[in-house]
């Protein structure tokens, strides 16, 4: 990580005039009476270009967001102060205000922190994603995307395309004085099209975002394939029929459809919800919570994945955590505060959107392990049902487990074959109930290429994945009685 250290040294110390030794001493001194805590320094540089309406609407200036957050943990409580002023005086002043928490929540002893090795493995590049493709070339590529989409289908009436790169530079100094440095790249290309036929308009979109430089993303995904995916979705939906209504078997496609897994199961397995009793999965470790063929994993150390981190935002190493194995709940994802209260080890899931937020339990890349079934056999096993491939997103109430999803690309399955596309289906159900009714799991695990997750007002990039999955017990709310 010597590369990351040299980059953080420049931005946080050389450029600001702060001294790293003095800051480390300041942190350990301010947290002497704390049970734990840390200083989180961050500088995010983001470059975005966008094309819409046949013209350039943003031409890649680089925005800058920087600051620090200081956390003082006492007992089960924490005091947090943050500022965009990166100076020793400002850190010292705000750090001193955080001690007040001791008056309200007494110490319960020092947080044990793993003596993490400073030499961490490398899950993604330290290259700067802002500079590998020139601003002029980015804009040229957006023009080509626009022209390609409009030429590909005469029904295209609107094309929006964007290319965004961000470079997230982080230094954490923990209460034990240990310092962690990371530079986290993210590059994203997104395309959306609107097609019109007679009076009917439909939209399609596709995007890919990873912890890579843009050049490497283009090595795996050509922008043409993204445009083709968006066009396919939009033109397919031109032919879509009103969705049926009723309790039908649902087959979820592999890859991005796992957003449903993320919402309906993942959020309930976050340690903070579990320890507060605010999850249907609270207190159920060791119990059967899903069908035998369901194994669910959260993994924060997959190479180049958008949810991956070398260490989480508390300085804890990321790892592979099996949450549900063959249907039995193994444990939860944990940040350090929840882990300590529950008496288990942290799992590297303490994340925050930016320096102006406290870390809370968050997912990284959450996926269902592959099963035995051939995806074609899964479709063939359904007499009348729904095949849902793409979703715009969904929502869950972690307390009751109730969830709702609206697919953006879905088909009716008739007599074991994929039939007509359907529109405006709403899938509702209950997470634990749905997981108990998983009937088949495909052998075709795939990770989605995009995903942002919102919780408590904080948005972080996450990954999702799954093989093709068949389940029962989902209500399909369409406008046509089935």
């Amino acid at each position, binding site marked *: 990580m010597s590369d990351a250290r040299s980059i953080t040294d420049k931005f946080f110390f050389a450029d600001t005039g702060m001294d790293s030794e003095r800051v480390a001493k300041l942190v350990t001194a301010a947290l002497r009476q704390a049970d734990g805590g840390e200083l989180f320094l961050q500088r995010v540089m983001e470059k975005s270009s966008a094309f819409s309406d046949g013209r350039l609407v943003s031409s*890649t200036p680089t925005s800058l967001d920087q600051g620090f957050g200081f956390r003082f943990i006492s007992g089960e409580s924490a005091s947090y102060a943050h*500022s965009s002023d990166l100076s020793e005086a400002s850190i010292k002043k705000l750090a001193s205000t*955080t001690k007040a*928490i001791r008056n309200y929540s007494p110490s319960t002893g020092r947080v044990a922190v793993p003596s993490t090795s400073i030499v961490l493995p490398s899950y993604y590049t330290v290259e700067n994603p802002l500079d590998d493709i020139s601003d*002029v070339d980015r804009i040229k590529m957006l023009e080509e995307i626009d022209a390609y989409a409009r030429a590909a289908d005469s029904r295209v009436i609107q094309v929006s395309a964007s290319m965004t790169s961000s470079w997230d530079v982080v230094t954490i100094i923990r209460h034990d004085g240990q310092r962690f440095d990371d530079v986290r790249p993210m590059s994203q290309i997104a395309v959306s099209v609107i097609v019109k036929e007679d009076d009917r308009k439909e939209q399609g979109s596709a995007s890919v975002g990873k912890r890579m430089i843009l050049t490497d993303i283009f090595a795996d995904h050509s922008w043409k394939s993204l445009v083709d995916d968006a066009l396919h979705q939009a033109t397919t939906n031109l032919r879509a029929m009103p969705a049926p209504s009723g309790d039908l078997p649902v087959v979820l496609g592999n890859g991005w459809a796992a957003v449903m897994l993320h919402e309906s199961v993942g959020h309930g397995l976050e340690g903070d919800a579990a320890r507060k009793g605010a999850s249907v999965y609270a207190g159920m470790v060791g119990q059967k919570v899903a069908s035998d063929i369901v194994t669910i994993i959260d993994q924060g150390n997959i190479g180049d994945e958008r949810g991956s981190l070398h260490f989480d935002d508390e300085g804890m190493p990321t790892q592979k955590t099996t949450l549900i194995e063959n249907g039995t709940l193994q444990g939860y994802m944990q940040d350090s505060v929840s882990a300590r209260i529950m008496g288990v080890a942290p799992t590297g899931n303490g994340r925050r959107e930016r320096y102006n937020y406290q870390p809370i339990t968050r997912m990284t890349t959450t996926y269902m392990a592959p099963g035995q079934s051939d995806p074609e056999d899964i479709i063939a096993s359904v007499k009348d049902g729904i095949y849902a491939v793409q979703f715009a997103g969904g929502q869950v109430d972690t307390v009751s487990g109730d*969830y709702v999803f609206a697919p953006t690309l879905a088909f009716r399955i008739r007599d074991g074959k994929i039939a007509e596309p359907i529109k405006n289906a709403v899938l*509702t159900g209950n997470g634990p109930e749905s997981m108990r009714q998983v009937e088949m799991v495909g052998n075709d695990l795939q990770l989605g290429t995009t995903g942002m997750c919102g919780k408590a007002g904080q948005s972080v990039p996450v990954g999702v994945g799954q093989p093709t999955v068949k389940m029962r017990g989902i209500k399909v*709310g369409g*406008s046509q009685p089935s």
Partner: protein
Amino acid sequence: MARKEIQNIHDTLQQALDLMKQNGADYAAATFSTHQETEVKVRNGVVESLETSKPISLDLYMRVGDKSESIELNSRSVNDLNDSVAQLAAAVRRMPDNVFDRPVDPSQVSHVKTNRTLDLIDRTRVSLASMIQDARAMEAAALAVPGVSISKGGAAGWYKALTVSLDSRGDEFIRERTGSSRGVSVIARSADDQRTGGEGSSAVYYDDLMSPDEIGRVAGIEAVQALNPGKALAGHFPVVFHPDIGPSLLGHFASAISGGAVRKKTSFLTEAMNRAVFAPEINIIDNPHLLRGLGSTRFSGSRATQPMTVVEKGVLKTWFMGLEDARRLGLENARQIRGPSNLTIEPGVLSQAELIADIKEGLFVTGLMGQGIDLTRGQYSRAATGFWIQDGRIDYSRPVSNASISSNLRDMFLNMQAANDIKRLRSSKAVPTLRVEGMSIA
């Protein structure tokens, strides 16, 4: 905020404008925002989190000839400012010409440059101790409701915000406001179910907040009443939206008449100007001058705001659009160029009970989940939580959960009735209880 702070900000803005001019700007504008904020969270009576902050942000806008671009940064360091302006100056020159984005004609710039007359600054000193006390009181009141067993926590917050905008013509606008908020969330449990109930309040003035006891009681009752939901009947029924939920419908309407959607024709209301889009009894008003209003302001961009009727007797009277979209559509001289401020569906004459009295069967909605809105076609489908309406009254012993309700916004607006129970200061989008005929429930 202290005079001295505003002077410091003014100096930073002037420095940024000078830099942009040195880099070739023909016109430039800069906006500096900062706020002071304190938030406390309490769970089971224990202070779980104290948070204080004073973030800043700086937005720069630069115009060279007919090309323009903007950038954001939150550093006051001279190096960062120099770098950002250099970046911006290069980016501007890559943009295509855009004549629609020219600055407002000087004759149209608002003469009023502060919001001083709108009563947006609460001088009450809200202490940390009183916020903690309020959060504990809400939690205690909620836990006192029989059947409530777990607290997810109570929170109270206070902020003071300051935004200063300055442009290269010397026009300077200052916005200052305070805000207080509090809320609580609890869980009720039965043998085989658990449900959340929550309530919150936010206001410019601390004293305008709902009382902690009331918030706690409402949250507790909501959780208990939601336990062990049954299924809603399937079919077409009247759906009644609680005043806390109805503002989402008003939000869909505001999006559908926004400049971008109208210009790109991505709204089902693109062709609706001066046509009936709501039931004839519905009036929608936007009042930027509401005293203590959460969305109040005397100016938008650099133009003066004024109250206006958006929908009169069901007929659409104006779009919400910025200057650039208005010019693209040839509407520059229209008076109503701006976004919504305090937007309300005006109250009707019936009470909530009277509005529901003739409903044989229907659904009273107290919560919505999911994002099933397609503004292009007006398609609406979401998952609703609430209570079944039977023989003219809400039957609180029949909770309903995750019922999918669907219709088209066009039909929903045309078949809408409003009760008389509006609370204008509760949100920047405020509505009374709303009844919508003929929605499909699955």
